[in-house]
């Protein structure tokens, strides 16, 4: 073997080792959560790297608790409502920002960008008061309202960049046909924006599904909690005996749908993230 060939081979091997490291980095923690969740509680404290049992008792435990099922339901309700509201308000707003030139447009864009940078804690006390004032404390509706603070700016921002890319002549053709702005949005642009809406909707869904601080602060009882809070608050007899089996089972349960979504919509998510950040 010449030294040149050897160098080639070494580079190739080195590269695949790197790929393997990246894969382990990405997958292992989740994989480990899965195998932990499938262990019987007796074996929990012996470390193993392989899936050597298929015990679903941890899953039975969490699903037999009404509060966890309820939390999943709350999470779904909150996330879907947030996505619907963000898309509805976002599409109309992005039409205005992306296609109409008017005074104040830049200011509005800056305000939106500013809001997306708000630390959530900064509005916590004021928002708490608003939510209590509206009678929405300890109610998923309060979460839906408060989640618009981070989903709405993002949705508007990304949809605006997509809106801008639609050809001007298409809108002018609609104007010639007598379409009002509202008709143009609903009949002409919306059908063309579905991919963008799916992307932003998905990202907003993930953000809402994962939110923790507001959910922790604005809910009180088990029946109103969302999944992240429910998982964070699972506790055992004492601080030092956390029920790791059920916790991992719950973690896997709420993550699997997300992982599947991400795998399916990988391309869209990437384009959405880059549209929000790079082109913005």
């Amino acid at each position, binding site marked *: 073997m010449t030294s040149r060939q050897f160098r080639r081979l070494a580079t190739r091997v080195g590269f695949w080792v790197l790929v393997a490291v990246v894969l382990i980095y990405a997958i292992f923690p989740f994989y480990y*959560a899965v195998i932990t969740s499938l262990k019987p509680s007796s074996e929990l404290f012996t470390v193993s790297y392989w899936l050597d049992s298929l015990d679903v008792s941890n899953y039975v435990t969490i699903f037999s608790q009404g509060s966890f099922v309820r939390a999943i339901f709350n999470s779904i309700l909150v996330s879907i409502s947030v996505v619907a509201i963000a898309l509805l308000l976002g599409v109309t707003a992005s039409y205005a920002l992306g296609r109409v030139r008017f005074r104040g447009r830049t200011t509005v864009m800056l305000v939106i960008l500013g809001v997306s940078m708000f630390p959530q804690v900064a509005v916590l006390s004021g928002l*708490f008061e608003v939510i209590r004032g509206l009678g929405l404390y300890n109610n998923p509706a309060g979460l839906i309202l408060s989640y618009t603070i981070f989903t709405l700016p993002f949705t508007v921002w990304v949809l605006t960049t997509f809106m801008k890319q639609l050809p001007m002549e298409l809108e002018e053709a609609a104007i010639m046909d007598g379409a009002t702005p509202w008709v143009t949005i609903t009949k002409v642009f919306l059908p063309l924006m579905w991919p963008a809406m799916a992307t932003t909707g998905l990202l907003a869904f993930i953000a809402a599904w994962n939110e923790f601080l507001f959910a922790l602060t604005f809910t009180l009882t088990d029946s109103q909690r969302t999944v992240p809070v429910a998982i964070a608050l699972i506790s055992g007899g004492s601080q030092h005996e956390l029920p790791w089996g059920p916790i991992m089972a719950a973690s896997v349960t709420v993550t699997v749908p997300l992982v599947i979504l991400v795998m399916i919509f*990988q391309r869209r998510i990437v384009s959405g993230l880059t549209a929000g950040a790079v082109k913005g």
Partner: protein
Amino acid sequence: MTTTTTLPRAPERARPYRGTKVRRQRVRAAWTFLAPMLITLALVAGWPLLRTFYFSLTDGTLSTLGDASFIGLENYLVYDNGAWYGLLTDPLWWRSVWNTVFFAVVSVSLEAVFGVIVALILNAEFRGRMLVRAAVLIPWAIPTIVSAKMWAWMLNDQFGIINHLLMALGLIDSPIAWTASATYSMWAVIMVDVWKTIPFVALLALAAMQMLPRDCYEAAEVDGIHPIKVFFKVTLPLITPALMVAVIFRMLDALRVFDVIYVLTSNASNTMTMSIYARQQLVEFQDVGYGSAASTLLFLIIALATVAYLYVGRKQLQLGGD
């Protein structure tokens, strides 16, 4: 119907035109479309922010929000009986400021470095590349709480796989209490955050890399320049703008970090950040006035960082444009 009179006109001095009815209608429609969004944002962001500012000047508590009384800047700083009190004198507050900055700078730097490395790997042509790319998104998609819990389990001092692995490899003699020890807990938190956010940085860097012109690379290859040199001389400078955007986003995110740390180490002072401090005051100690003061300072720090960034960014743009 309107009758338009043809006015005598001075072509040099363009008359500011009012626009036709069509244009005015369009602008009106634009504001109508914006209104629901702006109202919502005002309700959930603008007004609460103002109230937080106001609360920070009162002695309100969670149960007596309505009739809090105005106490000026006492929550921030007050001289009473020969001693200074208030947020600005609280060592724990300053500790949490330092923790936040340390956390943000270290984790974002690590994310940038590893993010670019991962992006370089994903940018190479190899079989199964799309699969690896999808896999890399997993840490990003996992809810922060869940990833914190997973890592808490892996970092468990007695039964955790990390300690097990390190001991099996002979790197450590006795288990480390990762999330409880003063030395390691901050690093444990940083590690989890870096793990979770590398994908974001990597994807943005990858998107930038894929937009780079191919001919630069072909030219470099023809000239026989070493790939590492090509990376530092060609790739890195060209992806820097996109990378900066990712870093800024991440920085603003890291400065308000709450959930990872809250789940991994709770309210421990070793890892307490500004957000955790503020929330503890607000919710656990029910001291809305004091907690709002902390929130306000956090907001001001982030706002300042943003403005500074925008200012520097614009400066650089202008310099670059000349």
